[in-house]
């Protein structure tokens, strides 16, 4: 078990290094530093200004190979700054990127943690309900509503939510944020509701399939034959066995918690990391974007390792070697 974890972590290190390589190719060779400068300064910027921008941001060094000093290249600098979490300064406003990340993490978590738990609870309950009534009207109605909910674009939910709940009914502020923990819930209600409705359709559909597949297994029949009630059957037997597909789905969602929901945050004016990412894209802030993408990848890799280890906890048949 410990040997397995150590090996998985070493694999993880390899994957991180590979991801950094891909990021470098994306950010420095697909778009050249001059390209970034043109984007930042505009098409009509004079060549001197562009050269100045490139020099100011330290992008004037060689990409891969510097005959004078091997370590003075963008590649080495890229690996070093990412791995040491010293992301440098923003290309847009010259503020330290780490400050922005620290600032944005909290609002993102405020939004996504309740969204995640309430959403998971409702998806699971809804899925259990339709799975329990499989083949009946409730199941079919649930299916139609789920597919409908999945098919409507996020934007529609956001705008409809803001219009109906915010503008017409005046229940919640349309957008905004307050860092005071006692006030913040007011601003979070609407985005949480909208985000939940948006995620519910897909969640119910996915978990329904998982539950139905488990409900047809022989051990469920055995449990019924010994006199087990339907509720105990679902919560005790089926849920326990559904944990593996469930874990896969749930743990992979955790990195999204941190990075926030891109659209939701920017539309509701929540200054989280999702909003920061959208801002960075709009503002041609390549260095911030690179740091955020890297953090996202890192969280994904960690989540995958955690999932694999969690499998052993929920399923005694899984033995890690």
């Amino acid at each position, binding site marked *: 078990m410990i040997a397995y974890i150590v090996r998985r972590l070493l694999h993880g290190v390899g994957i991180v290094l590979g991801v950094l390589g891909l990021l470098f190719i994306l950010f420095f060779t697909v778009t050249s530093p001059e390209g970034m400068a043109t984007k930042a300064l505009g098409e009509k910027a004079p060549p001197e200004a562009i050269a100045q921008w490139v020099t100011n941001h330290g992008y004037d060094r060689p990409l891969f190979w510097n005959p004078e000093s091997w370590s003075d290249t963008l590649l080495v600098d890229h690996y070093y700054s990412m791995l040491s979490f010293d992301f440098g300064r923003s290309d847009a406003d010259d503020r330290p990127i780490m400050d922005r990340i620290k600032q944005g993490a909290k609002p993102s978590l405020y939004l996504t943690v309740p969204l995640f738990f309430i959403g998971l609870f409702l998806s699971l309950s809804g899925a259990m309900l339709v799975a329990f009534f499989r083949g009946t009207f409730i199941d079919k109605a649930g299916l139609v509503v789920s597919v409908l909910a999945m098919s409507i674009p996020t934007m529609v939910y956001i705008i409809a939510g803001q219009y109906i709940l915010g503008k017409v009914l005046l229940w919640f502020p349309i957008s905004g944020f307050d860092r005071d923990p006692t006030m913040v819930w007011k601003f979070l209600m609407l985005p949480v509701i909208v985000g939940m409705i948006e995620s519910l359709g897909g969640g119910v559909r996915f978990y329904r399939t998982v539950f139905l597949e488990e409900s*047809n297994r*022989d051990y469920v029949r055995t*449990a019924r*034959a*010994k*006199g*087990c009630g339907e509720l105990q059957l679902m919560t005790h037997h089926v849920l326990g066995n559904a944990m593996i597909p469930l874990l896969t789905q749930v743990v992979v969602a955790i990195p999204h918690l941190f990075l926030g929901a891109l659209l939701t945050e920017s539309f509701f004016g929540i200054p989280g990391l999702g909003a920061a990412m959208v801002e960075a894209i709009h503002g041609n802030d390549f260095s911030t974007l690179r740091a955020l993408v890297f953090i996202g990848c890192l969280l994904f890799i960690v989540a995958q390792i955690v999932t694999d280890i969690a499998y052993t906890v929920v399923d*005694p048949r899984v033995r890690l070697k």
Partner: protein
Amino acid sequence: MTQPLLELKDLETSFPSSAETVSGRASVVEGVTLSIDAGEVLALVGESGCGKSVTALSILRLIPKPGRIERGEILLEGRDLRTLSIPEMRKVRGNQIAMIFQEPMTSLNPVVRVGDQVVEAIRLHEKVSRKAALARTLELFEKVSMPDAKARLRAFPHELSGGLKQRVMIAMALSSHPKLLIADEPTTALDVTVQAQTLELLRDLRQEMDMAVLLITHDLGVVNQLADRVAVMYAGKVVETGTREDVFRQARHPYTKSLLRSMPALAKPQEPLYEIAGSVPVPGEWPAGCRFVTRCEEGDDFCGEEPAPRRRLSHSHACWCHRVEGVQDES
């Protein structure tokens, strides 16, 4: 006459079918009438697809949807189980009637320790503490001759062999001293040596606990070892019933005779083993008259026109065949 423990009267269970039927459903079990006395072993015999398992599941009302029981009575000590509410039915399942299944490999919950699964069965029907239930489980494990019983309480199903898993299933079934044990092909999935041990165990336990057993099998060797009475099923209907001697010594229905002839233990040496030509037709495509007519060696044209009547051959022996002489009764 004393009341039988369990009586099935004219049981019919159907499933949706792609065959051309008016209702879009086909009956898999039709007009099945059986009775089991307390302490008796009744073997239900027949090829795969004859409706044996569906009959068994119907008794506990565990027919998976969209299958359903169409008509008939399921009388447990005179009480019709079909009239019970679901909570009442739950008190019958695993308590008065317990069931063990063909596939011990998949019939236990893979993520729950086997001891806990038996504990759950006990506590579903009795208000006892977990600790007391666990002590009972250990006794049950010892009763089913589980080697190293104490350590096995904490084992997961995948850590046990098929035979041991079936022992867990049996322990679970016996946990509340059922009056009737339904054993649906309990040894089919096991190795031959383990089959013998499991059968022996079932035989001993039945005597010790004085419970009736409905034994479902296609293995006539198993029937010969365990059964007091035998009911032969073909294509959803009972075709012959009688004591073990009746059926093994004086089988009258052509299907029963064919089954016996295809038993390796009874076959004559040097001769190729007999086999019944063809296979059981799919539900919904059963002949209108006697259902065995398509594979029968003795039948004539008339057999295919009308269902065969019940003919009483002795007080214990009956047969549903046009070609058999006997007292025809109306029931």
